């Protein structure tokens, strides 16, 4: 039950943050990547604010034996920097630059621009499914 409350609260804060910060506007995200054009640095401020809070959160986490409302931490422990990581990030950047959208803003924007965001989200789901089929 507590897991469900946290998931909904965290998602809502996340969606609200994306909306306030202007990151649900694909042209603004694209503007951040357009460094040779009319560069829009807003995304750097968003990332800065989010990372700032998370640096504190990680410091708190290091002092905890377990999370406040769950039995144990389930965190990625992979250290390997391999072709999958780099290849995935390169591909992600291509799609991100082309459409100005990444998963969070695309999902949140479903409520305000259901058709455009829906086309992107459905395609993203298809891309994730393709990956699953290739690696199954």
């Amino acid at each position, binding site marked *: 039950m507590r897991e469900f409350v946290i998931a909904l609260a965290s998602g809502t*804060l996340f969606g609200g943050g994306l909306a306030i910060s202007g990151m649900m*506007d694909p042209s603004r995200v694209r*503007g951040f990547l357009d460094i040779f054009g009319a560069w829009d640095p807003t995304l750097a401020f968003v990332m800065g604010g989010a990372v700032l809070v998370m640096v504190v959160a990680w410091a708190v986490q290091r002092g905890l034996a377990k999370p406040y409302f769950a039995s144990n931490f389930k965190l990625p422990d992979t250290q390997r*920097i391999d072709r999958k990581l780099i290849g995935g990030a390169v591909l992600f950047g291509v*799609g991100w*630059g082309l459409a100005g959208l990444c998963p969070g803003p695309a999902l949140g924007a479903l409520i305000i621009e259901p058709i455009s965001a829906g086309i992107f989200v459905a395609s993203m789901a298809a*891309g994730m499914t393709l990956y699953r089929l290739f690696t199954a």
Partner: protein
Amino acid sequence: MMLPGFPYAMPVEGFVGGLLIGLAAALMLLGSGRIAGISGIAARAMMLSKSGATIPAAWLFVVGLLLGALVVHVTVAPIATEFPPSTWMLIAGGLIVGFGTRLGSGCTSGHGVCGMARLSPRSLIATATLIASGTATVAIANVIGWGW
């Protein structure tokens, strides 16, 4: 507040929104012990990922993303959006982003926010790579007429 030289930038709104995003990720980390990586949560919601939050929790997070956007849209200010002009860009972009996030184990939230703050070498390299790749893509798109 305006940023000199960048008339369209929203540094204050961006930073405040970023703090909220950080709080969202902190709540997930310290409350449930998990990374708030949206691509992973989305894949989990669609049962395309073997590990992660329970499936109902993944769905609730996604519902929250829409709910948070709606609350801001209604109470703070209408969310201005400009989407790509061509449907093929949405389709191609979505396909590539979906495949890429799974291959690279994360996106702007998991690697960019959570992993960078943790100083995870994997996430630092992934984030630098995806920004470099996105920047190169926009530059090339502008040259070949796919800019918008």
